[in-house]
């Protein structure tokens, strides 16, 4: 299995720098998600790896093959051995499902060999079997559902046995109800085929649910790479932490393994040492509000969402607001007083760490947060 690696990659469109010193690597059979808000260079990164976009600097290698190292080396996309799964699949509308999958297997006219057709047919059958569309070989792409089209796109990408499959928000156009199912299927198929893949997305639930590791990309920079749990629990900055999940960020003063906050004492992940001022990042599921006539906080809003409720609490003195995630229906009354306890460990950021201010684009400086909690 081939290890894909990109180091110090810079790329731009015209005069606009889109990738700024990007590093990533991908091990055998692994699925890496690149998570970032739209306009942060995710698609450009994929196109750079695929060879569809020339990079300005840096190096991209697959195993021992150098794919790109400007200015001397730029391997054309058709010789890189990468599979591409763009948004909405991009099946060839003029070809049947079978011909779509076969596309990358057909050699140029002059290099065809006897027996090649039979071998191709076997490979196509194998892949149609893998993606569960063995009976749809003669169908036209237009006759398939969105999910089926994605599966054909995957089979087509896998057919020439690429070193890596690159997926550009492949599930964004699907019905949200189908999305979760299809992406698990796709992940299982990739595992079955033992092909590594890079998935770029702006959907953090998608990134966290399917990726073995994920990379946070903002303003063309890779900010952090790790397992979803690790990045969620120990973000490198408050910014990354708020990007990967809903969070309340408050002032804190830490000493040793604990910090004093508005919400009371909070355990700090990793001992800090002497008393340090800074900020602490608390997740909604860590906040436990309890009705208390003498409590410091007031319940501002309760949103019931089926399996859980989101309780927005305010501190009237400082104006600080936070959201707590409570199992089931919350029995708290709006306007009532509550006291708060914070469970588990929280990430602490000493004030000396400068706040990263590289918001990507002005359209959505804030990542899509369904329950605005900051």
């Amino acid at each position: 299995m081939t290890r894909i690696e990109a180091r110090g990659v810079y790329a731009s469109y015209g005069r606009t720098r889109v990738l700024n010193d990007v590093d990533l690597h991908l091990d055998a059979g692994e699925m890496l998600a690149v998570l970032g808000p739209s306009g942060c260079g995710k698609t450009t990164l994929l196109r750079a790896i695929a060879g569809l976009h020339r990079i300005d600097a840096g190096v991209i290698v697959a195993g021992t093959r150098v794919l790109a190292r400007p200015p001397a080396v730029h391997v054309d996309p058709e010789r890189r051995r990468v599979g591409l799964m763009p948004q909405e699949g991009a099946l060839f509308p003029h070809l049947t499902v079978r011909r779509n999958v076969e596309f990358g297997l057909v050699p140029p006219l002059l290099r065809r060999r006897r027996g090649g057709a039979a071998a191709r047919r076997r490979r196509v059958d194998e892949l149609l079997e893998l993606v569960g569309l063995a009976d749809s070989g003669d169908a036209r792409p237009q006759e398939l559902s969105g999910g089926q089209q994605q599966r054909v796109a995957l089979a087509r990408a896998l057919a020439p046995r690429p070193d890596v499959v690159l997926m550009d928000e492949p599930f964004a156009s699907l019905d949200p109800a189908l999305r979760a199912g299809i992406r698990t299927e796709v992940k299982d198929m990739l595992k079955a085929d033992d092909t590594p893949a890079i998935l770029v997305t702006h959907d953090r639930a998608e990134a966290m649910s399917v990726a073995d590791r994920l990379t946070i990309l903002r303003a063309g920079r890779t900010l952090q790479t790790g397992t979803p749990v690790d990045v969620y629990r120990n973000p490198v900055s408050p910014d990354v932490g708020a990007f990967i999940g809903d969070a309340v960020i408050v002032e804190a003063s830490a000493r040793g393994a604990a910090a004093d906050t508005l919400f009371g004492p909070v355990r700090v992940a990793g001992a800090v040492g002497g008393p340090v001022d800074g900020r602490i990042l608390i997740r909604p599921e860590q906040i436990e509000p309890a009705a208390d006539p003498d409590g410091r906080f007031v319940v501002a809003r309760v949103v019931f969402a089926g399996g859980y409720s989101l309780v927005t609490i305010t501190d009237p003195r400082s104006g600080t607001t936070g959201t707590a995630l409570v199992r089931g229906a919350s029995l708290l009354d709006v306007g009532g007083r509550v006291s708060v306890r914070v469970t588990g460990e929280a990430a602490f950021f000493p004030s000396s760490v400068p706040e990263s201010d590289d918001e990507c684009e002005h359209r959505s400086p804030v990542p899509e947060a369904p329950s605005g909690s900051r």
Partner: protein
Amino acid sequence: MAVFALSPIVHLTVRVFEGGTGAAFSLLFRQRTLDLAVRTLVLTLVVALGCLIVGVLAAWLVTRTDLPGRRFFAVALAAPLAIPSYVAAYVWIAEFPVLAGLPGAALVLIASCFPLVMLPVAAAFASADPGVSEVSRTLGRNAFRTAWTVEARGVVPAAAAGTLLASLYTISDFGAVALMRYDAFTLGVYSAYRGGLDRTVAAVLGLVLVVIATVLTLLERRLRRGATARTGSGVSRVAEPIPLRRWVVPAWSVVLAVLTVSVLVPMLGLVRWMIHSLRFTIAWRDVLTAMLTTIQYATAAAVVVVVLAVPVAVYVARTSSPVGRAAETAVYIAHGLPGITVGLAVVFFGIRFLPAFYQTAVLLIVAYAVLFLPLAVGPARAAIVSTSAAVDDVSRTLGSGPARTDRRVTLPLALPGIAAGAALVFLTVAKELPATLMLRPRGADTLATELWSATQVLKYGEAAPYALALVLVSVVPTIVLDRAVRRRSVPVREAPVEVAS
């Protein structure tokens, strides 16, 4: 490749100024030039105004009102586009000889050109956001006042672009003005070419025409860019039609009058003259020969033009470089070039560089290629642009290089657009008159030139079978083409409407 489209014109310019600018300008600033210019200007203004009024009114009636039968009218009113203007002119002059001159020329050209205004305006009406009109109604303006003050504003760019296209058609038109004996610029060019010993006069006049046509073409393009009516996005919704009530009968009369003048009279007149000529012996053999010649030339031109157009279309669709934009503009300007000047330019060009091919089919096909390359580039480019880039990317990553990707993916996907362009070229060549008149090989006649010859000597009965055959050759494939394109439902945007017949 796009330079090819303009090279004969460039050569014509060089040729004109070879004798010194003084000589060229002395030929230019003559009473004759002024007379021609004034007559063409008058005709163009009348036709433009007529097309604007008839086109906008017809568009409004068929899209925004509850006029009974408006769906049928919407289709029927576009039919004049399929009738060559000189066929209509032939019937009108044969039936009503008094119309000769400005009235006849204006009548025929308005009847032929108003769909050029009606179609884009109807599209603008149909795509306008009904919410805006509804707001106007709730603010106290009634349906007619809203139509005038709100909806009309939305179609101004479309109407202006359509009117310019009609003007362009008018100044380039040769057949209709010639048959109506209206001494406009194109006819002046032709007379100077036929009569004069020194063809430089014709060349000078032809260049004046090119300048006017180019200005109109560029103006039209600027206007067309602003011709989208909808501002916001959102689900498109069709506005409630405005009830005409007691205005139904007047509205009907208007629509029926327009249809009578533009479609019924030409068709019935044609049938009448056909029956008339059936009493005499018709030279069926000649008609058949002319038809075969026409089909041969049209097929050859379609093949040549498509072979030339596909690489241009691929290049123009892909690039955003200044060269690409210049090529696109060159192609666009070429689509407005009058057939008479291109014919003339190819004559000069051929005599100088390809004397062996002068008065052979080869040179004629070259002229057709120059004239109609844009017709094929337009739909082909649109079809290529509308194929998604993602599909190309996938093909590249699957191991097909750029050329193989074009062959395996892009061109098959763009095939309907390319075929539509080829068919359009075929149709347009089949009814082309002025360039064919100048360049056809000795003894080879097309339907159009046979019709022309017969009407020149006032043998209207003899002309009838040729006119009928022409209508068959142009109307029937138009319907087939339209159906085929609709069925494939590949968007063929920006297909330039053919200019000059």
